[in-house]
């Protein structure tokens, strides 16, 4: 009788162990953007980007605070938040999408497309991003870059400053995911 109880106990315990989380999160994701023009180069980096992936459904979500972007010049930070992105009204940029044909069993790097909706400045655009996914013993590294057009997101640039800001902004990202524990 005692043996049966021990066996039951072990069974239930191991069954619990088998329930592996399919969700992976990063709280220090990096997103940088670059605007290169002949007048001036602007670059900024955000090291506090949140992102989560759900491998059971191949879904991904990203969320970041716009005022967490760090610029070389403090005045650029103020202008970015105050005059362009209007982070008073739209504090966050988010992305919600799906990793197409992701194979969780594959080892090493795989290059996949992510399809989803990117929201900046309150405006949502459907985009496709090419990403490299690396499996590193139970954690995942996602890297990639893509470009967005400033005018797609209704960001107003006065004509006199138009030469200072690129029409197309390039964005790079690097997310290192760890298993998500609630």
């Amino acid at each position: 009788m005692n043996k049966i109880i021990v066996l039951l106990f072990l069974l239930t315990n191991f069954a619990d162990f088998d329930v592996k989380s399919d969700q992976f999160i990063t709280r220090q994701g990096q997103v940088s953007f670059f605007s290169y023009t002949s007048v001036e180069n602007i670059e900024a980096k955000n090291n506090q980007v949140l992102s989560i992936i759900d491998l059971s459904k191949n879904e991904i979500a990203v969320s970041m605070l716009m005022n967490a972007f760090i610029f070389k010049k403090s005045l650029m930070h103020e202008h970015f938040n105050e005059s362009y992105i209007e982070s008073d009204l739209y504090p966050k940029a988010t992305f919600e999408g799906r990793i197409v044909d992701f194979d969780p069993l594959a080892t090493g790097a795989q290059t996949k497309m992510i399809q989803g909706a990117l929201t900046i400045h309150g405006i949502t655009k459907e985009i496709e991003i090419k990403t490299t996914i690396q499996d590193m013993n139970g954690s995942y590294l996602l890297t990639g870059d893509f470009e967005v057009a400033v005018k797609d997101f209704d960001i107003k640039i006065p004509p006199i400053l138009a030469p200072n800001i690129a029409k197309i902004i390039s964005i790079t990202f690097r997310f290192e995911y760890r298993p998500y524990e609630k």
Partner: protein
Amino acid sequence: MSINAQNLLDTLEKEYPDIPQYEIATFKATRISIGHSIENRKKGVLEVVAMNRFWNIPNYRGQSFVADKLSARIALEYGISDRLTFGAGGSTLDGIFDGFLKYKLIRQRSDGKGSPLSVTLFQNGSYRSKKRNRPFFMDVNRFDDFSDKLAFTSQLLVARKFTPQFSMQISPTYIHRSSSAFEEDPNNQFAIGAGARYKLGGHVSIVSEYYYVINPLKSVDTYDAFSLGVNWELSDVMLQFQLTNTRGMVEDAFITQTPNNFNFKDGNLVFGFNAIFVLHLHQKQK
């Protein structure tokens, strides 16, 4: 077992760390229009400031270009830390040299917690090197020795950004003049300033400022300083235009010693133009 019925973005929403969020740019420039705002520049930022005032002389028959009279203040203002600014300048009118320290004491939080106001302390000292040579407006201080020509202004600047467009500031002010040429004039004067800005777009705002003097000078009629202006920012350059009745650009001069009221008569209406160049001497990227 919980199924991930929940949206992934909602999950992330709960993961944001509780970092205090502060309001930025309650005002765009370190001055609202004529007086100081609660804003200061970040560490390592140098502002090169050129302030100009233009006005006409009543019934003057001369042929000056644009305006009869011009006064200018050239100043350098440097961010010692993110909260402390030091500045020094010289004005052509009355030859006033001034130096100031400005410290941001309390920052308004934008996340609904903490302080609903921003508070900045301002202290300056000014030295009046030239005797005034203006008709009907005598000097109110003595010029016997160095300390006679000094004046000090202390301000408590309190501001709140009510909406992304609208900010307001109240500035209780104490001004001490080291010497008085006339016995009836107070050496210690108190004033209350009020200023506001309304943002018309990302880069342009309209501003107004008013200083009410509680115990004005007695030997001469003075009027409260008033200003109506437009501020325009262009990347590293800030332009401030104003219509005002003040010609001085140092606090003790324009708050307590403005000899004319605000109206559109020649000699009373002053057109002002501040150009501020912002240089980042200490560039950092964490």
